[in-house]
């Protein structure tokens, strides 16, 4: 049996150290207020906040969510209170917890991203930025930044210039060659990757004969997309040397380790919070016993083991 070690769950995410690798995913945890009623947020490895834009946004009309087999669609449309409110109310409120914040930011133009990045990165409890270049529910001046490697790289470089904290880029799965986008943003200076955002999907109502979501299509998340996420992380992690925050359908400690094996160094949990408000602390609690069961000393040892060929095949 493995020797108990206090820091078995600690992970190094580039220059950031997290006490454990589990964080709620952006957009699925607001700014933490709601779930803080269920548990003290200090237990979390980090918190990825709802995408913040320069100005407040209302987002898309409702209905904004629909259920699909083992998944859900959402088209929230980046609703958020805007940079000012996040700086003045949300981040100071979050500072009461001993948890690094990963500030997910979005915009319609590069300038807007740069503006938000510059200001939000100076807030003490913001440990990193997460560039949301992949929200499928908002058209950013016609282009989605996440689908063109060059545009993604350009945006990354611009944000890197102003950010005082590491910059993670959140990749879209709605591309033909995700490795190309990953390499391009790494080249442009990204300190890490978050993957994956939601897959584009739709449901049509037989009664109304229209899409259920008012926006038409939406982003597919939840267990249904887990195999897609695992495949993409498995591929990308072999081609970049920056750390990856993995996400997409995680529901259990077993899922977390599967993401590590694929190549993730930390994970984010989205949709599962809606099913069980206690899911993040529950999974954190289950990780050590599971490592014991598998005879693994440190969770970080698992990163990329799915493709590192020195591991003995059981």
């Amino acid at each position, binding site marked *: 049996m493995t020797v108990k070690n206090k820091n078995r769950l600690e992970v190094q995410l580039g220059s950031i150290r997290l006490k454990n690798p589990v964080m709620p995913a952006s*957009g*699925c*945890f*607001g700014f933490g*207020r*709601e*779930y803080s*009623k*269920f548990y003290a947020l200090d237990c979390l490895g980090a918190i990825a906040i*709802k995408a913040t834009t320069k100005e*407040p*946004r*209302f*987002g898309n009309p*409702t*209905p*904004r*969510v*629909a*259920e699909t*087999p*083992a*998944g*859900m669609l*959402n088209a*929230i449309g980046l*609703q958020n209170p*805007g940079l000012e409110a996040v700086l003045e109310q949300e981040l100071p409120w979050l500072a009461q917890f001993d948890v690094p914040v990963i500030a997910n930011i979005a915009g319609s133009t590069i300038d807007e991203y740069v503006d938000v990045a510059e200001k939000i990165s100076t807030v003490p409890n913001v440990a990193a930025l997460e560039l949301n270049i992949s929200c499928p529910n908002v058209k950013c001046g016609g282009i989605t930044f996440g689908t063109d490697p060059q545009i993604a790289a350009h945006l990354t470089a611009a944000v890197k210039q102003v950010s005082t904290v590491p910059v993670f880029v959140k990749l879209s799965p709605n591309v033909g060659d995700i490795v190309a986008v990953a390499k391009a943003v790494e080249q442009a200076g990204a300190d890490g990757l978050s993957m994956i955002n939601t897959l584009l999907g739709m449901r049509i109502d037989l009664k109304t004969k229209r899409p259920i979501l008012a926006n038409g299509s939406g982003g597919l998340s*939840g*267990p249904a997309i887990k195999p897609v996420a695992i495949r993409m992380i498995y591929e990308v992690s072999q081609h970049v040397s920056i750390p990856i925050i993995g996400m997409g359908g995680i*529901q259990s400690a077993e899922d977390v380790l599967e993401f590590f094996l694929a190549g993730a160094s930390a994970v984010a949990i989205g*949709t599962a*919070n*809606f*099913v*069980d*408000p*206690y899911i993040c602390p529950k999974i954190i609690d289950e990780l050590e016993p599971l490592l014991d069961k598998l005879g693994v000393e440190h969770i970080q040892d698992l990163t990329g083991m799915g493709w590192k060929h020195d591991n003995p095949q059981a």
Partner: protein
Amino acid sequence: MSKTIPQQPINPPRVPQVSLLTVTSNSPVARQVYQMTLKGDGVKAMVEPGQFVHMKCGSTVYPLLRRPLSICDVDKEKQELTIIYRVEGEGTRYLSRLQAGDTVDVLGPLGRGFPLKNRIEGERVLIVGGGVGVPPLYYLSKCLTKRGVEVTHILGFNSREDSFLTSAFEQLGETYATSMDGSLGHKGMVTDMVERWAPDDWQAVYACGPLPMLKAVEQYWSGCPQTEVYLSLEQRMGCGVGACLACVCHTPDSATSYKKVCTDGPVFKLGEVML
């Protein structure tokens, strides 16, 4: 308790709980409509009419999300909760198959319900419900009549076969039923019936039902500020606790101002949100 401070927040939010409740009964009460009672410790927090619970339908990833269902009745002594639900899809179909002894993972109570504290003995209030908007009004009416408030109910259904709870409501106060096909009570919509009274015949009006019904209620009472009108809204939900922003509605204040049906509602004061 006076009518002089109606502008204060309707009810302070409470911390919702996740609890495993045990089904004590579950049977059809109308066409595709079931009534279920659930028992357990978690019921004791369910004190406010108009709140809802978020129910996990099964223990797997299908169905994935919880389903919002209104609290229809609560027996505090027995720690029993009643819900009435129509079978629509996978989630409610799952619920309809449960039997006494089975357990359900319930998150709740959620949201802000119908405010009672302005209500005083002898007041006349109107309760207007349509379809599966009727269930939360039953617990409301029980709470109101307990306070000595005189309650009149107007309940609309598609037809007699779809109706439920009408005789239970009759025991609490005057009850008028309507049906689209005339098989029960007045033939037509609840709103036809509503117009038999002047708007200010009532100290308060509480409504829950389909959007067109709520809009009609809004219109009828919009020029009548002396009557307190509360509308309970429905919206597709994700989290049910205010985090995902699935369930928002606009407020009249500004283009970006909004309320969340799950935590600011489902009950709103007339005019508070845009229907």
